């Protein structure tokens, strides 16, 4: 795990790198499911660059989080949209940053309420360590260590390009 | 016992007295003002420095559910005479009940009790009670409390009968049909909160009916707890026409309005209901101009009967111990003199009752209230002697604290 570089990497370039990691593994026709909102943008990119015809799924994990008792319901919940039948499908779950693993756990639980997938793989741009659950990414472009209190946020700029932003809590 | 009350500010509205001086009491009566009467030697001296010395308050409406606690509450509030509505359980419709009440009050030896006898048996508005017998047993007038007589003919006959003996009839003007389903003033707040309303017409129609019956019977009538601007205007017109009609206003109606219901506060449920701001202002003006006496309408309600949804909660608030501070608060807002304010709860009620109390004239009974007009105290259940802790003012600071109360020249309360 490397420390944070002085200037943040180009997220668009990292998406292209992620695409090349996934491209050799498309034989079982996986469906892409992006976790709002960073994962959704990345999944959109992957669909374009991998030239997939199927609409991507979009998942909001607000109803499956494990911190409802402390934090309550997130004020902006978006509807989950899975436009294909999960039953028997191979699925690539896409997110921007993998951290504790809890979001992935929630997304997996939510997907299982739609049916029984054949398999789920996890694709992320950044893995910042700090896992609290036994979750590992299948495809990952960037391992990075952050300082306490910092978080890595993927944002969509005005011109539509994705870019990283460092935020301090 | 010869008592001198010295260093106090003596205010006697009836006689226009308002000065720092001494008051002399002998044989249970006011014996002198300023100078000791000839041959007077004080056996007890009360230092009233920083205090007002005035006639004991006369409360034209106080319910005495548990008589000992409430009469103790009365004198703690500076109230020396209490008019009791006849709607206890059982209603005061038999002479023996009046006898017992008066007797018990004498035994307790605190505030004087002036019972109102029931106008009709069981307050049912049908058959007359034995008015003469009740008068003999000590009733000062006759009333239906807050239960209107529905049958106009019955009311006419009752007033005719009372007029025969020159008995006064006290009535709360509330049309039965227009008020029977209502729980709040029919106005903005009730519309918004979805509370069944009692329109002002319930009061004005009843007043108009009663005024007409007074014209026809000559019966003396006292209208209790006027709640609306239109209502007070009708009373004013009737008085102007020379009819024998007096009225009173509950002290809470001078200070609170329908807005005080807030989020369905059951302590803001009153009968008659708290009305709109313009009603409150008209009542306030009427009281200030001497048109109406002020009373507490003291109604102790158990906590369980108030901790209910608004429409199920019993109406009324504790009043005996807040009559003085609330009257002072009302007067302050109008910049009324202390003497004018105190008149509303001393000489004015005495005039309604036709009594010689409520004044500090030499020879009058020594019913005296000594209070500190600047002292503040917080209204909490513990601070009240009354069993009725129900008040919309709970937790608020009150200004005006009674230091001592005398009835018939005896100290019956000392703070």
């Amino acid at each position, binding site marked *: 795990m490397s420390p944070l570089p002085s200037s943040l990497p180009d997220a668009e370039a990292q998406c292209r790198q992620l695409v090349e990691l996934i491209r050799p593994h498309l034989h079982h026709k996986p469906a892409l499911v992006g976790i709002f909102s960073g994962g959704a943008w990345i999944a959109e990119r992957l669909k374009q660059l991998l030239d997939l015809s199927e609409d991507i799924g979009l998942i909001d994990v607000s109803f499956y989080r494990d911190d409802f008792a402390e934090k309550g*319901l997130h004020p902006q*919940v978006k509807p989950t949209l899975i436009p294909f039948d999960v039953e028997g499908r191979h699925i690539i779950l896409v997110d921007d940053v993998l951290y504790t693993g809890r979001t992935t756990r929630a997304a997996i639980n939510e997907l299982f*309420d*739609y049916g029984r997938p054949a398999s789920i793989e996890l694709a992320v741009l950044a893995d910042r360590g700090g896992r609290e659950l036994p979750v590992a990414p299948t495809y990952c472009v960037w391992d990075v260590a952050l300082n306490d209190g910092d978080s890595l946020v993927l944002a969509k700029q005005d011109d539509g390009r994705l870019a990283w932003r460092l935020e301090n809590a | 016992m010869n008592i001198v009350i010295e260093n106090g500010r003596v205010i006697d509205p009836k006689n226009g007295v308002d000065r720092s001086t001494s008051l002399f009491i002998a044989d249970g009566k006011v014996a002198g003002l300023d100078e000791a009467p000839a041959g007077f030697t004080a056996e007890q001296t009360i230092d009233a420095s920083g205090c007002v010395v005035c006639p004991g308050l006369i409360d034209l409406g106080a319910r005495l559910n548990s008589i000992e606690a409430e009469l103790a509450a009365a004198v703690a509030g500076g109230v020396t005479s209490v008019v009791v509505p006849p709607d206890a359980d059982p209603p005061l419709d038999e002479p023996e009940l009046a006898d017992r009440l008066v007797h018990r009050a004498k035994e307790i030896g605190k505030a004087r009790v002036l019972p109102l006898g029931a106008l009709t048996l069981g307050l049912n508005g049908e058959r007359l009670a034995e008015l003469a017998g009740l008068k003999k047993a000590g009733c000062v007038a006759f009333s239906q409390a807050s239960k209107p007589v529905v049958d106009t003919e019955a009311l006419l006959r009752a007033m005719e009968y009372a007029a025969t003996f020159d008995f006064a009839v006290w009535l709360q003007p509330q049309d039965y049909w227009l008020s029977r389903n209502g729980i709040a003033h029919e106005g903005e707040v009730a519309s918004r909160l979805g*509370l069944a309303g009692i329109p002002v017409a319930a009061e004005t129609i009843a007043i108009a009916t009663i005024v007409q019956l007074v014209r026809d019977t000559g019966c003396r009538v006292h209208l209790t707890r006027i709640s609306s601007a239109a209502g007070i205007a009708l009373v004013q017109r009737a008085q102007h026409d020379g009819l024998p009609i007096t009225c009173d206003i509950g002290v809470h109606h001078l200070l609170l309005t329908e807005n005080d219901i807030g989020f369905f506060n059951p302590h803001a449920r009153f009968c008659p209901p708290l009305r709109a701001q313009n009603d409150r202002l008209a009542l306030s003006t009427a009281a200030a101009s001497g048109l109406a006496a002020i009373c507490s309408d003291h109604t102790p309600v158990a906590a369980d009967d108030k901790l209910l949804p*608004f429409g*199920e909660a019993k109406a009324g608030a504790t009043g005996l111990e807040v009559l003085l501070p609330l009257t002072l608060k009302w007067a302050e807002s109008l910049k009324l003199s202390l003497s004018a304010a105190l008149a509303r709860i001393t000489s004015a009620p005495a005039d309604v009752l036709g009594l010689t109390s409520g004044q500090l004239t030499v020879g009058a009974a020594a019913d005296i209230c000594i209070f500190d007009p600047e002292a503040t105290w917080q209204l909490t259940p513990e601070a009240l002697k009354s069993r009725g802790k129900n008040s919309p003012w709970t937790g608020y600071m009150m200004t005006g604290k009674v230091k001592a109360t005398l009835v018939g020249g005896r100290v019956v309360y000392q703070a």
Partner: protein
Amino acid sequence: MHNPQLNKDGELTHLLSVEGLPQRILTQILDTAESFMEVSAREVKKVPLLRGKSVFNLFFENSTRTRTTFEIAAKRLSADVINLDINKSSASKGETLLDTIDNLCAMHANLFVVRHASSGAPYLIAEHLHRVGRDDIHVVNAGDGRHAHPTQGLLDMYTIRHFKKDFTQLRVAIVGDILHSRVARSDIHALTTLGVPEVRAIGPETLLPKHLDKLGVHVFHDMEAGLKDCDVIIMLRLQNERMTGALLPSAGEYFRHYGLTPQKLALARPDAIVMHPGPMNRGVEIHSAVADGSQAVILPQVTFGIAVRMAVMSIVAGN
């Protein structure tokens, strides 16, 4: 005066009335409901949000319909649901409303859904819970007397937003017995808070509260004038009891003047929607042709109601 529905962070902790809630909270509820609509469209119509929590349906006034939708909503949130039908006679056996609440708190209730015949009852409960230090228990008002039915008001708004999108361009008419209607009061507050420029009340003088204009409503006694160019028509149920007590002569006369017929509906915009909180009295307030017609959205209202109630319970339970 503090708003008993909001906690000290300004978040919704009880839903007692639409009145007094800022627009952002109404919008939050509607937006969250959209997500729950999606949940209700799935095969597995459940999310684990309220798993392990107990929702007590306290209905002091009978209502199978409303209680059922709350029950479905709570179960779709994975909550345990306990139904208590407390009719007046058993309450009059001595136990006060607050004693009942205390007992249920001791049974580890997390959320009370309360319907009561007295306006203000849910406020009494919320205040009591606060006083006894149980800010972790939430109250949702399922209808109190004539005062409020906030979840119905919200689902009505959801319905309008679903079909009409923009509140700020609409003319909305509410027709019928507004005086006795908690639904109407909640609708009026919601419509004005969400920025509807023209809210109309249509009915005879005896069925309209005085001072409606103070709530921002235009009053019409002539239904044809009132319906002109309306985008949304909310029909209220006329209860049989109104025919006693000299409020109305007969259902027939009411229908002739205030019933929604196809002819009267034609005076509104051609794409106007017709709503009704249910249950409907066909031939009294609404003609069957309208109730079954293409402009009626009465059945979708019911579906939206479950999602809205899921949203409300999720939001308060988390605060």
